[in-house]
């Protein structure tokens, strides 16, 4: 990362991709926006340290994904322990559309990798950091995900890692 980069220069425009990524992962607009905003606030607080990293994006995404995952886990146990808590609005995932339905049909790890790569526009190094796996695992996961999507969406190019 360029030395001396200010948060005010780095931040604009990044929230859109982060919220969009979280939205595809969790299907909840409110949660996606809240997790993203909290992650950016933490990034700003730790900016001296985070800006010195090779990519502040990876750190911010990891924080945001952890926040969203935590809320989702709590909701999951609430739903399991007390199914009456689930209302109709809780089970309609966003965003809508055939493409996103297909992305949501991928296994969790593939879905996460695809979202971080193509919606978040993260590099494989950053994706590995967010998912807590090696870069090689990310590359293999993305290749498998692309193949899975290409069998259904014939206009997706299958790239080899």
């Amino acid at each position: 990362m360029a030395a001396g980069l200010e948060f005010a220069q780095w931040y604009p425009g990044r929230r859109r991709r982060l919220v969009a990524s979280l939205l595809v992962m969790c299907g909840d607009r409110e949660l996606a926006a809240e997790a993203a905003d909290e992650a950016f606030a933490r990034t700003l607080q730790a900016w001296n340290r985070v800006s010195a990293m090779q990519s502040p994006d990876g750190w911010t995404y990891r924080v945001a994904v952890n926040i969203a995952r935590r809320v989702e886990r709590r909701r999951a146990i609430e739903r399991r322990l007390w199914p009456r808590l689930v209302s109709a609005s809780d089970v309609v995932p966003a965003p809508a559309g055939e493409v996103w339905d297909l992305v949501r049909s991928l296994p969790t790890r593939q879905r996460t990798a695809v979202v971080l790569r193509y919606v978040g526009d993260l590099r494989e190094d950053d994706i590995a950091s967010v998912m807590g796996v090696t870069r090689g695992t990310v590359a293999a996961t993305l290749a498998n995900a692309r193949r899975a999507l290409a069998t259904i969406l014939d206009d997706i190019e299958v790239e080899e890692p």
Partner: protein
Amino acid sequence: MNRFHAAVSELVASMDDGPTVQEVHRRGQRRQRRRILTRVVVVCVAAAAAVGVAASYGHSSAEPQIAVSPTTSSTTSPLPSTTSPLPSTTSPLPGTGSMPVHDSVGDVPYPQGDITDASFSQDATNFSFGVTVVQPLDPATDPAWHNGNAVLGFSLDANNDGVEDWYALALPQGPNQAAKVGLRSWANPHVPTCWGTLASIPGAGYRLTFPNRCLPGGMRFRLHAQMDFNPKVGTYKTATDQVPGVNAWSEPFTTLADPLTT
């Protein structure tokens, strides 16, 4: 551009820019203030507890000592509290961490869901997570509890990574039914839910109690308590009080290393 990339572009473009840099900064400042307040409270309470321990062991100081229990009421606490901590059905054993985590009064609109203290305690057979609230209700009779408008939960972070590893939750099942209280491990989802009980402490709050076998002995963890409450049944304007704060954790507790597991 194929359909996939077009969908991504459309999705990203549909998002708004969100808060300004100044608003992000203000949010960070609010978060920082909450963290500092939490640390101050923990340090003050720890200091008060240390004084109490010293006094209870007959500290040989020339000055008179005031005995202060870590779970005693606000009269000996350095910070004000409107309610006294939970009475204990069994005496916590030394070192099990019954120190309450304090939370400010009035940070949520409904006193029925306004947590003032959260704590963990353990004896030879059971451990408990407890909260005191400004205006406790009886889950057995209160409509908000019956209708799912009151939910109490505790998260445990056992590896200090800021993500919950265990979760305890109390969800009442309706009129004339006992609340369903479960404790689950996220680190090992194959471990079946451990079931416990909800006790209402009149005038103080609530306590979830589980047998010692539900958590590993000697486990060090940080605690986060949360209560969702909405007095208007059928609406969704729920207020959530989180202790010590949003995405914040208590100082560590440790379960007994070798408790009875019956």
